[in-house]
């Protein structure tokens, strides 16, 4: 099973640079994705993240996420088209030949554009964040966050969220197997699948709430929250400089296009 958002050991560019450099790189990309509303520029940012991932030997992990992201993207576009009509009508979702409701649910140019921008923005942010997480040991990431004086509660929250993703994935599979053993057959089609989620999602949520209680008590009883801020110095190398410079050049380029309209 492919675990999502988990550290992948390696020795590529991203593994060798300091976590703080990666953090700055991610933050710059996220800011650029939020500030930009040009689909071409967003597409360019997406290509940049992918090139960076391939250069760091992490391309395969990111590529495997594309089908999931495509589904999310299509859903985002679909819901935008349904809920935010704007601009000229391109075509109706229900053909005009259908009696009574024909011509309903119009697809507008504005909604299509906005949905595409949202999907691309989401993809850039997700992939940039994933690049940071899969190339950094969680302990190093936590140390860096502590060095940046992030409060211990937030650091622990971040660490726990990462740690429990694969646990939830596995628990979901276990619950699904238990229900399959009771003759449960998820329905066909989208609605069938949505209805069929209940026997899996409910135990998953209820069990997770139970775990959260024990987890909170463990954190208190092991005294983790009295942890002092890390004071170690941050040492960066030449490679960090290269990655940071590249990110800054990218930011300057995008800003120039946005502001000056190059």
């Amino acid at each position, binding site marked *: 099973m492919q*675990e999502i958002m*988990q*550290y992948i050991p390696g020795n590529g560019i991203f593994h060798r640079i300091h976590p703080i450099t990666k953090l700055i790189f991610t933050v710059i990309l996220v800011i650029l994705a939020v500030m930009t509303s040009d689909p071409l520029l967003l597409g360019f940012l997406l290509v940049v993240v992918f090139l960076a991932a391939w250069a760091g030997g992490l391309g395969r992990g990111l590529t495997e996420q594309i089908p999931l992201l495509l589904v999310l993207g299509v859903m985002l576009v679909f819901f935008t088209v349904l809920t935010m009509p704007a601009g000229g009508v391109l075509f109706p979702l229900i053909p005009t030949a259908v009696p009574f409701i024909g011509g309903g649910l119009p697809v507008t140019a504005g909604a299509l554009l906005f949905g595409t921008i949202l999907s691309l923005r989401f993809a850039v942010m997700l992939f940039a964040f994933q690049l940071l997480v899969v190339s950094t*040991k*969680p*302990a190093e990431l936590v140390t860096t966050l502590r060095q940046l004086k992030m409060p211990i509660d937030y650091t*622990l929250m971040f*660490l*726990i969220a*990462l*740690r429990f993703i*694969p*646990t939830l*994935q*596995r*628990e979901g599979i*276990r*619950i699904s*197997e*238990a*229900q*399959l*053993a*009771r*003759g*449960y*057959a998820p329905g066909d089609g989208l609605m069938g699948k949505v209805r069929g989620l*209940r*026997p899996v999602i*409910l*135990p998953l949520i*209820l*069990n997770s709430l*139970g*775990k*959260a209680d*024990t*987890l909170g*008590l*463990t*954190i*208190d*009883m*092991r*005294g*983790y*929250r*009295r*942890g002092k801020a890390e004071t170690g110095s941050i040492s960066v190398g030449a490679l960090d400089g290269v990655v940071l410079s590249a990110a800054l050049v990218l930011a300057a380029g995008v800003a120039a296009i946005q502001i000056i309209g190059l």
Partner: protein
Amino acid sequence: MIRIDHFGYTYRNRDHPVLRDISLSIPEGSMIIITGPSGAGKTTLCRALSGILSHVYTGTSTGSIVIAGRDMMEYDGIEELSHTVSMVFDDADAQLIFTTVGEEVMTSLENSGLSKQEAEAELVRILDLLEISHLADRAPYTLSGGQKQKAALAATLALGTQVLILDEATSELDEEARTLIFSILRTLADDGKTIILVEHMIDEAAAYADICVLVEEGAITASGTPEDVSRIIRDALPPITKRPRKAGGAPLIEAEGLVHCYGDLRAVDGVDFTLHKGEIIAIVGENGSGKTTLVKHFNGLLKPTEGTLTIAGTPCNGHSIPVLSRHTGLVFQNPDTMLFEDTVRKEIAFGLKNIGKDQSSIGEVLEEVGLAGKEETNPRHLSRGERQRLALACVVAMGQEVFVLDEPTTGLDLAESLQIMEILMRLSDEGHGIVMITHNPGLACAFADRVLKMSNGKFIAATEA
């Protein structure tokens, strides 16, 4: 010294107290076992002793608890208490916060005030002691239940507190691993630490502990040496007589040369297996020996990598899970992986609806598992033993020829375990074939027709019980 004086506790929004008039003295350097049925208040008592009830929860308490010469309420909070008391909870997974076992233990060591060099040396010692050095770089989600329990214990031992509480912290370990843990705890007690152990396997732990108390319905009903309390528990139960071996009927499951690989690992490695009508087979073996992987083939959740498998005359290859699960019902170790409805009746009806079966048998099945009258109760409000029996009822109601149970007595006391065994014997008398995985050799020998031992994916010994 810990002194509990007439202590009682009622959780917020509950009408009835969970603990009533508990008085107990636990001398320094002693190891005490707390035992009793599920839902009796053992976990609440552990939470009282660790300060959670006084400093985290908001129920109402009576009486007092004194730890290390100070009343529980005099401590500033759970963090101050954490220098004196540590606790291993029953859900090991929720206590592994960091992303590797090594980090988990190391963080505890650094928090206990050791220098980096001291902490590194201590890390090696603790991992060696619990025989988990090979797991240091492994992420929690890759560990088995037993390995998680050892890792959670290692992180707690690393804190080096004067009082150590273990709430069913060995329930998923095999016999050998349990013995290792009990002997480590005894050594700690001999070094002056106070060990409080909630345990159902009191006969195994008896040789290591000094005192044992029996908790029933929120009160201490017996106390003394572990042998005395064990005798009291056994005297209250009908004697366990060995089940006469039944002549094998027609074969229900036939496996030949069954192999299952996870990547390069041969989790099941060339197993021949036959289950007959009316037969009870127990499969025992260490954690990770391939028991669960094997039984997941019996209802089609896994397909053999090599070999042949036939379930009630249906070859498993080429048939889907819904088809095979009409012949085999599988009850997982943790009942909470399946319970999701808001009443007991709906929970059983779910499986019946899935296979298009009439729901008139629900009352009868509940009667059979001793849950009559609980039709409208929320399954999550039942005790662990009751939930385990409900999970069994959900599958039994579907009436398949074969029932497979993965650790059906985990977290249950002897009386509750015997209730489960009685149900299995009745099903066997009705002609069903039963396969149960268990870490309890006593139950396996007393109730199974055959006991098969697995190691590294193979059967290494079979006992005609």
